[in-house]
């Protein structure tokens, strides 16, 4: 199996995960807001909740796998950027997304409440 097949396959698989994550995220958000919760209440409930922490960690990882593959494709097809740095730049962006996202999840679940 070659690297491009991996990238393409990873993007497909992460898309499936993202479909579920986005659906659950939006549905839950609409539901709790209609139930009268405000942002501060939601954050308070998420604190210490490992199940939601795991859910959002999966969400972040799926996004940070999915995004760089697509960005590399855009760089290739639209910007004519075809050398190895297109791949490296996309990996850097993916890593940055993962770090920023996981830090936010950690802050929600385990961080000190304001």
């Amino acid at each position: 199996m070659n690297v491009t097949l991996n990238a393409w396959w990873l993007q497909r698989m992460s898309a499936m995960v993202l479909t579920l994550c986005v659906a659950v995220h939006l549905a839950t958000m609409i539901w709790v807001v209609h139930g009268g919760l405000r942002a501060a209440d939601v954050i308070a409930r998420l604190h210490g909740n490992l199940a939601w922490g795991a859910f959002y960690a999966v969400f972040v990882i799926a996004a940070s796998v999915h995004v760089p593959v697509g960005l590399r494709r855009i760089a290739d097809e639209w910007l004519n950027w075809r050398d190895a740095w297109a791949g490296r730049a996309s990996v850097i962006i993916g890593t940055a997304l993962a770090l920023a996202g996981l830090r936010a999840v950690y802050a929600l679940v385990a961080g000190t409440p304001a």
Partner: protein
Amino acid sequence: MQPSASDSLSVRVWRGAEDGAFEPFEVPRRESQTVLDVVTFIQRSIDATLSYRFACRVGMCGSCAMTVNGRARWTCRTHVTKVLRHAGDVLEIAPLNHLPMVKDLAVDMTAFFDKWRDAKGYFAGNRDRSAPLELIDPASPERQAADAGIECIGCGVCYASCDVVGWKPDYLGPAALNRAWTLVNDVRDIQQGVRHEAVSNDAGCHSCHTLGSCTERCPKALAPTASIAGLKRAGRQTPKGGTR
């Protein structure tokens, strides 16, 4: 219907190569006139230096495809009335997109056919001529999938209509991938492993965005988009055909 002086057709034809320009012509309007009839009239009666390519004139050989009013078409089976909907419309004929212009309406098809070869778009059988013919059930799913894409005449309309080919010059394109898919489903073919490597990559089926222009414009009403989707699905499976 006899042509009359007032019953003429305004045509603009690409002349020259990449740095060329459109040249206007007036051609007599005739009943059941095809775009190829128009080009042939210009070449035989107005300007013998006009270069274009055709052979069979009946939609079999795939050599007369051109860009007609912005859309790639087989010119021998395209009636002028199908392109010109309103009185006063001008017929604009240019060479196919995404292939180097040679002169006027003729393009260099080398890259197009090289990609068929690169996609392992040719048959390599599992028997020699002394062996009896292998019986293939026409109703088997593999044979039906192959039959669905087999009638390609290699005209290049799909290739010229594909945006991804324009964006990514090493993309194999719809025709080569469609041909590869027919062979993936040919149980007699012995190149399944190398073909799989050739088409399941960044220059192959993974680059297809499923825009569907190839399927929309294929004059033989084939569906390269579906064939490429088949290659994508087959991407992580063992190829179906004969010896690996």
